[in-house]
């Protein structure tokens, strides 16, 4: 009898709970059906929405403020500049329909096509002039203001340095349809730079209307490109871009929308992909092995070059033989094939592959020299010489790296390789969070550092000008007059207007970096992604904007 009553008591509580949850359920389907774009796709095959998993938040939709890959990708999905980049990485006219270049290669006259912003106002030449001047205005504090000088736009460097007023920038909207850009010197890669978000137009009236709110929410954004921002919750982990019917080439866009989901936990993002919630995710570390044989697995070569930087202010590292010994001592094949396994390729160069196309129409690396890769016997010989030069029998160096999984594994491997190849050399590992690692290296407070560099534009110069005397990225404080002169001539001097000679000079400059072992290249980063088989046409690039969706489709 007591049992029956007890059972009754328990059941009544359970019913109470069940009652609570039941009353909640009828509400949910109603809210689900209409509001989530992603949900529509699963039930309704007519809407083609790509569900993309990303591991960082959308940091900025302001083309002058954004600095990271995801922000650039989303800005480029919503706004187009004078040029865009096609599937092969070649710049094609976009918002500009016609361009005239003066004979000396320093004056561009662009004719703006009939294109509209998503609020109905036309895209004008003034939108470019306004955006460009805003980029170099010190008040904007854009981290990418330097790129205006890279593009060679007249007076850009002086304005960024605060020596001239922004009015003196070499860009002028002659009328609504005509934009004139004056350069200090011919710039070979000017067109491809124009496809980079820093050079995208901003509607001045709209910007002034929004003020400090500009680009912070979906209401404070305008689009003239393939997609426009529909929902972007403040600090939310999802955002949705829908097809922009006002885009001038809207007919060629096959997708109805892009649904972004931010997932920090990689395990969870794989579950969501397997579940069918996502069409695209990035893989990392250990997970890659499980998917390498899947047809949905893709390797994408990225522009990032990872290298070791020896600090030449540290006793011993000023010795070329020691640097050469170190640079040849570790097995790069093993690093990319056994440790990273993400499609990264070993780097025996200072300028990555698939970065830049020369005046001959070929990739830079096709015609540039090949440099010695791992060679442990040679390394040992150099080490013997170094010992004699320096009068030492052993040396201990500190290897600085950032505390990510891949960097840690690579650093540990290099340590063991170097120590076994070169008896007497010991590496002490020093792991730091990325920002601290960068700061220590910038201050020259390190011995050997594992670092990386991503290209800003499609030209070898984006790497080569790092190692000039006084460059803030020349962490190792290497100095070479011949090199400085070569780079200077090729970037701003007499070679700027002679593309073929310039190209040869760049190759020569790279040769000096490699011969002097200024850096010890390790690998060029690859990205491992999973893409559902029904998705096609996503365009990946290693420079500038990394992903374009304008040709993407989903069956």
């Amino acid at each position, binding site marked *: 009898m007591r049992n029956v009553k007890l059972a009754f008591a328990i059941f009544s509580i359970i019913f109470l709970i069940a009652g609570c949850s039941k009353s909640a359920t009828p509400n949910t389907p109603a809210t689900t059906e209409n509001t989530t774009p992603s949900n529509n796709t699963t039930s309704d095959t007519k809407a083609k929405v790509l569900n993309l998993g990303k591991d960082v938040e959308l940091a900025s939709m302001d083309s002058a403020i954004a600095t990271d890959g995801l922000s650039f990708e989303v800005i480029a999905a919503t706004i187009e500049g004078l040029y865009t980049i096609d599937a092969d990485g070649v710049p094609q006219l976009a918002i500009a329909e016609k361009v005239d270049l003066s004979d000396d290669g320093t004056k561009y006259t662009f004719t703006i096509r009939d294109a509209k912003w998503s609020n109905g106002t036309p895209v004008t030449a003034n939108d470019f002039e306004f955006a460009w001047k805003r980029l170099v205005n010190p008040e904007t504090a854009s*981290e990418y203001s330097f790129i205006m000088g890279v593009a060679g736009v007249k007076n850009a460097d002086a304005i960024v340095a605060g020596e001239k007023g922004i009015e003196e920038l070499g860009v002028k909207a002659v009328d609504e349809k005509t934009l004139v850009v004056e350069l200090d010197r011919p710039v070979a890669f000017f067109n491809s730079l124009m496809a980079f978000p820093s050079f995208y137009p901003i509607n001045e009236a709209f910007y002034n209307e929004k003020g400090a709110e500009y680009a912070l929410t979906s209401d404070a954004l305008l689009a003239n490109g393939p997609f426009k921002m529909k929902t972007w919750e403040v600090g*939310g982990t999802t955002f949705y871009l829908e097809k922009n019917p006002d885009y001038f080439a809207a007919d060629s866009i096959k997708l109805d929308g892009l649904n972004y989901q931010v997932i920090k936990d990689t395990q969870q993002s794989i579950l969501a992909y397997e*579940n069918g919630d996502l069409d695209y995710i990035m893989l990392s570390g250990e997970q890659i092995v499980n998917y390498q044989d899947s047809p949905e697995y893709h390797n994408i070569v990225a522009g990032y070059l990872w290298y070791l930087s020896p600090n030449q202010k540290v006793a011993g590292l000023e010795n070329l033989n020691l640097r050469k010994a170190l640079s040849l001592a570790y097995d790069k094949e093993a690093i990319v094939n056994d440790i990273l396994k993400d499609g990264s390729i070993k780097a025996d160069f200072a300028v990555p592959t698939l970065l830049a196309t020369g005046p001959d129409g070929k990739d830079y690396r096709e015609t540039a020299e090949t440099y010695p890769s791992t060679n442990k016997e040679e390394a040992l010989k150099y080490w013997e010489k170094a010992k004699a030069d320096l009068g030492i029998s052993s040396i201990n160096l500190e290897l600085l790296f950032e505390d990510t999984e891949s960097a840690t594994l690579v650093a540990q491997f290099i340590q063991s390789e170097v120590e076994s190849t070169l008896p007497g050399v010991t590496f002490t590992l020093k792991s730091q969070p990325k920002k601290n690692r960068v700061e220590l290296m910038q201050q020259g407070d390190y011995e050997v550092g594992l670092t990386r560099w991503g290209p800003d534009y499609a030209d070898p110069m984006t790497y080569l000008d790092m190692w000039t005397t006084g460059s803030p990225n020349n962490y190792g404080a290497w100095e070479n007059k011949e090199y400085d002169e070569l780079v200077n001539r090729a970037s701003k001097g007499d070679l700027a207007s002679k593309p073929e000679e310039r190209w040869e000079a760049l190759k020569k400059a790279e040769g000096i970096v490699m011969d002097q072992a200024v850096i010890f290249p390790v690998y060029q980063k690859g990205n491992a992604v999973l893409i559902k088989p029904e998705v096609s046409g996503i365009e990946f690039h290693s420079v500038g904007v990394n992903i374009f969706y304008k040709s993407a489709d989903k069956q």
Partner: protein
Amino acid sequence: MGRYIFKRLALAAITILIILMVLFLMLEYMPGSPFNDEKITAAQRAVLDAKYGLDQPVFFRFIDYVKSMLTGDFGVSYVIQKNMPISTMLEARLPVTIQIGAQAILLGTLIGLILGIIAALRHNSIIDTLTTFISVIGVSFPSYVFALALSFFLGSKLHWFPILYSPAKPIVSSILPTIALSMFTIATVARFARSEMIEVLNSDYILLSESKGVTKRRLIFIHALRNALIPIITVLAPLVVTLMTGSLVIEQIFSIPGIGSLLVTAIQINDYNVILAVTFIYSIMFVGIMLLVDILYGIIDPRIRLAKGEKHG
């Protein structure tokens, strides 16, 4: 009583101010800065520091920060969402964290109580052993283990619940995180409820009531449970605090746009103002709960109030 509450409030305010000050100093002496990237030159960093006032001495920045904070202005985010006012970010994110936290506390307390009571009534039975087992598991396993297991089985294998949080369906998509987060509460409450119930059930007044012929149901729910509940309420306060720390990981895993995941990201990338603001919110929650408990103690048991009053008076 009024004086006692006022004193506790003043003490709480001072505690929060000290927390802020320590945080501010810690961030100041932490290596790195929000604008430390390979790409930024020293000159650009100077421009950025000037724009955000980071070039000022730490003391003045602290005074400025506290002053604007009192008006609800927490500054802007430097990295996570560049130039976004943090008050706006908190406004959007805080309710999500609170919603899931509250759900977890409710669910955890309810289930925990049921398990605990059954275990006490069926002392030394299989159910009792099972409850003890659940309690041990719930206390010893970190919540992310449950989070991963739940997503794998209930989310991915059975497709019962979505594995990612979606603002469009805040109830359904918060079920898994709520369960994962409530496991610790379930375990703790069950343990306490069980031992309290056993003690109360063996006490003289229950035996007396039983011999008086009070029905078993009435005996449990009216006489025993009420007395067993009081100590349980006292453990709930620290449990809420545990929930706050648990939410950091759970939000990260389920992609929940709350303040926990925000804090984790902010710490990784030195987004100073976000770290300060979120930690401030957490401190307020923590200090607030402790304050509430102190005051509740005072109300429930006047002896405590008197003792404390004497100490501070």
